[in-house]
């Protein structure tokens, strides 16, 4: 098994926030914490691009390197997880992470920073798999149920792919080669057929 990774296809993401909702629902993420979010560049301008961002489960994770209590670990599948019982909520990982993945609940008094929470690739944490304790601290452990992360599996346009890095890279490559360019990127011709005479011009004076 290779490393578990996410890929987001900017050509397909429609900024529906379905992945964010799926993650929230699956893991019962508390109010104010977003393990996943959709980032849009040139929002509102024609040609805007969106991608869904969460923990990228880095091979050389900076959060692991800066943690003063060494509460991070990497599983055999390359998923970066942490032990919430050890986390002191210092926030170093938040500053180190280039993707803003570590999140801190701030529901306590005086804006107190709680223990860090982040995307687990739906792989739970260091508690008994699929136990109540694991769900309460880390959310659902879908990998231990033979499933992939809820965000990727729920993505309506399949912009967000998650799973074995080699496999999803092949899916993405195949897609990029087949979809061509122009309107084919959206699959217009596949859905509605190609025009009989593409060179045909609209008659003069006709209204569109």
């Amino acid at each position, binding site marked *: 098994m290779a490393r578990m990774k996410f890929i987001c296809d900017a050509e397909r993401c429609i900024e529906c926030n379905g992945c964010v909702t799926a993650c929230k629902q699956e893991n019962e993420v508390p109010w104010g914490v977003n393990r996943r979010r959709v980032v849009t560049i040139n929002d509102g301008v024609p040609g805007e691009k969106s991608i869904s961002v969460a923990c990228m489960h880095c091979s050389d994770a900076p959060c692991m390197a800066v943690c003063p209590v060494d509460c991070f670990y990497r599983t*055999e599948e390359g998923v970066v997880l942490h*032990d919430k019982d050890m986390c002191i909520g210092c926030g170093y990982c938040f500053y180190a992470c280039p993707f803003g993945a570590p999140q801190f609940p701030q529901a306590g008094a005086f804006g107190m920073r709680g223990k860090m929470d982040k995307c687990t690739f739906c792989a739970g944490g260091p508690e008994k798999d699929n136990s109540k304790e694991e769900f309460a601290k880390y959310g659902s452990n879908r990998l*231990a149920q033979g499933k*992939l992360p809820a965000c990727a599996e729920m993505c309506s346009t399949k912009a967000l792919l998650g799973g074995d890095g080699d496999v999803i890279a092949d899916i993405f490559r195949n897609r990029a080669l087949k979809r061509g360019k122009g309107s084919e990127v959206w699959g217009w011709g596949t859905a509605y057929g190609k025009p009989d005479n593409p060179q045909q011009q609209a008659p003069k004076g006709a209204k569109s």
Partner: protein
Amino acid sequence: MISARKLVIAGAALIAVAAMTGCGEKEQVVVYHQGKYQGKPDTKPWENDPGASLYTPSKWKAGDKSGWETALKSRNQNQNEYTRAE
């Protein structure tokens, strides 16, 4: 006997060396050293039965890594609509 000229030269050389040390460049890129995980050990996802959940379509036996990998591979291919449509 050491002449005054030699003393001046030696002194000048010492001052030059001391001044040159300021020109030396130290490595300014932080090199992180990975710490060792101090928390609880975690179980592997294939070490448990997938559970009797109604919505768990994958079945493998506890400890059967290849069975778990097969389940995940087929799940992975569900994301590829090119193979699903054809």
